[in-house]
């Protein structure tokens, strides 16, 4: 992690370290794999067009089982410092942030590293990983559960899948329409002026480290 000698004049700020970028892209790859294989599994008439069904099932199953790994691995251990810090940021909301979310962005807000919408996206992704993993496992090892529970697990798995599709598409649209923000998940850095515009509160806190001339 590079840092400048004179933070006051730094030109760019580290938004995501290597561990976080790795976790994001590993997670994205698994989500993509799961969503891509989910389509023919859900819309039966489409299967067999690209890959044989049992292969699709295998990819879906193993991607699903691997799903919690990027986040867990990036959180634990000495390398997870920045990740743990961001989880804390995402967890704790100020009254200002709650008001901003309630008014859908119309109230005043000195933005943290992530705005409340971005925080909500992260929370939803985290929760849906847990829910999809548990219900998916129930569908895979259905014998251990009563038939109504299997039906319930199918219901929840499908319902969350719909929500995930909307959220992920929204996430990608937001990323593509905010190119300077998007860049930081590739190379880690945002410009100082970006941080002043989009994450003033964070810049105030983060100023002494993770900045570079």
């Amino acid at each position, binding site marked *: 992690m590079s840092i400048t000698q004179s933070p006051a004049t730094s030109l760019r700020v580290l938004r995501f370290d290597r561990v976080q970028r790795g976790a994001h892209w590993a997670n994205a790859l698994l989500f993509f794999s799961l969503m891509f294989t989910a389509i023919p599994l859900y819309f039966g008439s489409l299967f067999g067009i690209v890959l044989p069904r049992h292969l699709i099932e295998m990819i879906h199953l193993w991607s699903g089982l691997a799903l919690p790994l990027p986040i867990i691995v990036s959180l634990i251990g000495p390398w997870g410092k920045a990740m743990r810090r961001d989880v804390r940021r995402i967890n704790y909301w100020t009254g200002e942030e709650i008001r901003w979310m309630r008014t859908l962005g119309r109230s005043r807000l000195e933005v943290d590293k992530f705005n409340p919408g971005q925080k909500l996206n992260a929370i939803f992704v985290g929760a849906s990983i847990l829910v999809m993993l548990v219900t998916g496992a129930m569908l895979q090892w259905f014998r251990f559960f009563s*038939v109504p529970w299997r*039906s319930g697990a199918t*219901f929840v798995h499908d319902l969350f899948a719909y929500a995930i599709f909307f959220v992920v598409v929204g996430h990608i649209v937001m990323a593509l329409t905010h190119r300077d923000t998007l860049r930081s998940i590739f190379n880690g850095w945002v410009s100082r002026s970006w941080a002043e515009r989009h994450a003033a509160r964070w810049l105030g806190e983060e100023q002494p480290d993770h900045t570079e001339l």
Partner: protein
Amino acid sequence: MSVESPRGAPKEPPNGVNVGRRVFLGLAALGALGVAFGNSVQNFLGDAIGSGLGGLLPGGDRFRIYTITGTLPKISRDKYRLQVSGLVDHPTTFTLADLQSMPKTSFTKAFQCVTGWRVPDVHWEGVKLSDLLDRVGVKSGAVAVSFDSYDNADTESLTLEQAHLPDVIVAYSMLGAPVTTEHGGPVRLYVAPMFGYKSLKWLSGIRLVDAIEPGFWEQNGYPVNGWLDGTTGPNNPDPGLT
């Protein structure tokens, strides 16, 4: 040059609310409630707004198309043949027209998959298996019926007694139309009182045999008697399904 900041972790905002944890646990609880009560909710909605609309709801009332081979056997309705053989008086090959000229049985019943999904109010039409067996004449040594599929992979079996249940049919119509390829058309088995895996698709042959031959799914661990209520019996030692 690399330096770790001594004041790395930001302090929790003094008036901070752990929204993250609350929303996370809220969504997890929603998922748990859905698992526990989703089935009842779906049945209620299905009854309240009809299965047609229910089918539009995510998760509800839709078929998942499973195959063993990963391909759909395409059999034209003209070329379709059903061979009935084994311990019968008159081994017979039926065309689709032959089946359609026999007494028709139709009813509306749910399709329940062993993995949990269920499609209520499916309209079925075909020939009672018992009518078909009467037509060919079952020899006295026969105790079970084995079924073969045009996918050359799936097999199924029923006891002779089960085969005579009035809601076990050789179906050529489903959901108000000829059975489609993905649903096992032109002709499939429908065993209403059992889980969906017993309702073999792309039915190619019916053999009368002197002992139960566990089918494909049974060889992969499913109970031979796939009763929906999970009843166990001498052929169904697996108590896992309840």
